[in-house]
Each structure stands twice: as structure tokens, then as C-alpha cells.
């Protein structure tokens, strides 16, 4: 073990109570302390647990490299702490301050030299880890929300026996298009539909990637034994498709969803006829 670490170990063992008090005070005195989000007693419990885990880690570890197995327990605690704070509404800085605020009380107890350097390295590493753990939590939340949003925005509906429709609304990005197309193909199998209508009336614009995903879906559907009809292509999108040099010659396109439905029903052997003259409506 390095000389610095053994000094820190001794301080943690012999002056633990003073350290804990000083640290909790430091945290409460720090600018932007969130006593509205966390109580003093909770802070004390967390700090106490951190000191316990730290004392074990510096005893078992020979370096200030906090990625080793000796630091597993402390990293787990910091991950949990970051997660809790991220969901409670702490900022990344406020969350990482938990670790960084320990510098002042700890440095006060250390002799100059190797011990200070070891402590700096150690706390910096743990502080950065905490910030990263915070970000990971946020990223998880964002990813989950994205997934949910995509799920919500992909209503593949069964129009008729053997015909499904996917009315797309809003901006399509690459990721969403991919997921949407997957659920369309899945629905084709589930409903045994040989015809699928992709209606893009509600899509303001498409880029190359999105157009390519659409075409891939059409090809994939064909491999499965289903035909796709794309309807509701706006003039602007039609221009984009031509300018991008995309080949839609193999795909049935219709300007309106109504036309697409008619074609789909015809192909499945149905016919739409008016039984009698329409009832006059009051204009």
C-alpha cells in the first residue's frame, strides 16, 4: 500500500467521528445545499455509510485507482445515491458535491505531501464516478421515455380482414422509423395481413435515412409475403424522393389513404359499392 493511503486509512480509523461531523457540517454549509430535497439525518446516514465503505476500500486497495474490486461497495453506494438524487431533482453538480465536499474536512486532518495527493486523486475519481452515475441514470430515464413515446406513436391498426394500416404522424427520425417498421411487420404476421398501408399524410418531411428505412420495410414485407402501399405522399416529399434518387418503382403509391384502402380491398377480393342514393344531408 502507498504511504499516502495508509495515512488516510489511519485518519479514517482514528478520527472518524470528527470527520463525519465536520463533513456533514460542510455539506450543510455548502452553497446551494438542497435541504428542501434531503434531510440532515438522511445526509448523515449517507455520509456515515460512505466513510465505512471508504475505510474498507483504502484498507484493501493498494492504489487510488477506484475502479478495482476493493471499491465495488463504495461505487455501488455512489451509484444508488446518484440514482436517488437524480430522480429527486438534484443537479449533477449538487450530486457530485456530496463527494467533493469531503475534501475540506479530510485535508484538514492530513499532513502535507503524499497523503494529500492520494486523497485528491481518490476523491476526484469518486466524484467523477458519481457525476457519471448521475448521467447514466438520466440517460436511462430518457431512453425509457423515448421507447414509450415510440410505442405510443406506432398505432398499427387492422383495417379489414387481411389489411393493416400504419398512419404515421409527426417527424420521423431514423430510430423511430426503424421501430415503427418492426412493429408493422410484426402486426402483419399477427393479423395474417397480405397488405399493409403505410400512410404518411401526417409526416411533414422525410430525409434519406427515413426514406430508406421505409423502402427497407417494404422489401422486408415482400420477403415475408405481404405487399405495402404507401399513401399520403405530400408533393414536397415526392420531390425529395426524386431528388434523393430513391427508386419507388417497385412500390405501390397512392396519393390518399382512401385510394390506398380501395386498392387494398380490391386486391383482397372486396368491392366497395353504394347500396342506394345517399341521404341528403342538411348543409
Amino acid at each position, binding site marked *: 500500500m502507498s504511504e499516502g493511503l495508509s495515512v488516510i486509512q489511519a485518519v479514517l480509523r482514528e478520527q472518524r467521528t470528527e470527520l463525519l461531523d465536520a463533513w456533514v457540517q460542510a455539506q450543510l454549509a455548502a452553497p446551494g445545499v438542497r435541504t428542501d430535497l434531503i434531510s440532515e439525518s438522511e445526509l448523515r446516514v449517507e455520509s456515515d455509510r460512505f466513510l465505512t465503505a471508504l475505510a474498507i476500500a483504502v484498507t484493501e486497495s493498494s492504489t487510488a485507482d477506484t475502479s478495482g474490486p476493493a471499491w465495488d461497495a463504495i461505487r455501488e453506494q455512489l451509484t444508488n445515491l446518484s440514482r436517488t438524487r437524480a430522480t429527486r431533482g438534484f443537479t449533477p453538480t449538487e450530486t457530485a458535491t456530496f463527494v467533493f465536499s469531503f475534501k475540506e474536512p479530510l485535508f484538514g486532518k492530513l499532513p502535507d505531501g503524499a497523503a494529500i495527493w492520494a486523497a485528491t486523486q481518490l476523491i476526484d475519481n469518486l466524484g467523477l464516478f458519481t457525476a457519471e452515475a448521475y448521467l447514466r441514470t438520466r440517460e436511462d430515464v430518457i431512453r425509457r421515455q423515448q421507447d414509450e413515446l415510440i410505442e405510443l406513436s406506432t398505432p398499427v391498426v387492422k383495417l379489414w380482414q387481411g389489411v393493416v394500416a400504419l398512419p404515421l404522424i409527426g417527424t420521423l427520425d431514423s430510430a423511430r422509423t426503424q421501430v415503427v417498421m418492426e412493429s408493422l411487420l410484426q402486426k402483419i404476421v399477427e393479423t*395474417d395481413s397480405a397488405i399493409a398501408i403505410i400512410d404518411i399524410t401526417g409526416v411533414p418531411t422525410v430525409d434519406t435515412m427515413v426514406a430508406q428505412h421505409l423502402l427497407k420495410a417494404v422489401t422486408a414485407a415482400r420477403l415475408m409475403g405481404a405487399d405495402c402501399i404507401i399513401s399520403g405522399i405530400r408533393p414536397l416529399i415526392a420531390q425529395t424522393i426524386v431528388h434523393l434518387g430513391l427508386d419507388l418503382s417497385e412500390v405501390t403509391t397512392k396519393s390518399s389513404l382512401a385510394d390506398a384502402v380501395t386498392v387494398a380491398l380490391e386486391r383482397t377480393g372486396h368491392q366497395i359499392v353504394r347500396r342506394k342514393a345517399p341521404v341528403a344531408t342538411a348543409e
Partner: protein
Amino acid sequence: MDRVNRIPILKLGHLLLVSIQVDMHDRMALALQEDLAERIAETGARGVLIDISGLEFIDSFIGRMLSDIAGIARVLDADTVVVGMRPVVAITLVDLGLTLPGVRTALTVERGMAMLPAPTVDEDPGDEEAETAGP
């Protein structure tokens, strides 16, 4: 050993039915291609239906085998329909760059059968000729 690993080919009237239920290795795929060519010639089959709903993935080798079977069958005057490709398999094939041109597809065995000549021997004298003569 090789015998055991062959995929069975069922004959139903003028149709040959194959259901691939396991992921094939390359030799199995080649054996199936050979067997099918022989059986089409031998039975004068008019249609071949290949059910691939059991396949969890199709790489370029298996993809090429499906195309080849369709091509060989066409030369031997039989239609081929590949049925039951899973969505994820289809997506993967497209990304891989394989679109199996010339291969007819259907969602289910039922739909695939409807695309092929009726399996029962009908009154058409042309068919009877095919039964006895063969190429």
C-alpha cells in the same frame, strides 16, 4: 449421419412440401437443394412450397440456396413459394443486401398453397402426361 440430417420432402399431389424447422448448416442446405431437384424431376411436381417459419436467421448462404431452389424449380417447370419468413429475419436479410429476386413469398402455408397449382390431380390430360412421362 448425413442421412439423419436431411430435411424431409413431402409429396402432396403435384406439390412438394418442405418445412425447415432447424437452423441448417451449409451441407444440409446443399443436400436439400439436390434432393429437391431430384424429387421435382422424379415426380413431375408443379409446385414447391418451402416453409421457413422455423428459421431464426438466414445468412447469405441460405438465402442463395432459396434463390437457387426457385431457379432450379423454374427450369424444371415448377413454381416455388417460400412461406413464413419471420419479421426479424426479413429485416436482417434486407440489411444484408439480399432481396431474393425471383422468389415468390407468402405469409402462411395456406396462402402459399393458394398461389400454387392445386395439389390434387385434376382432369386436365396434360397433368396425367406429366405423371407418367416426366422429364
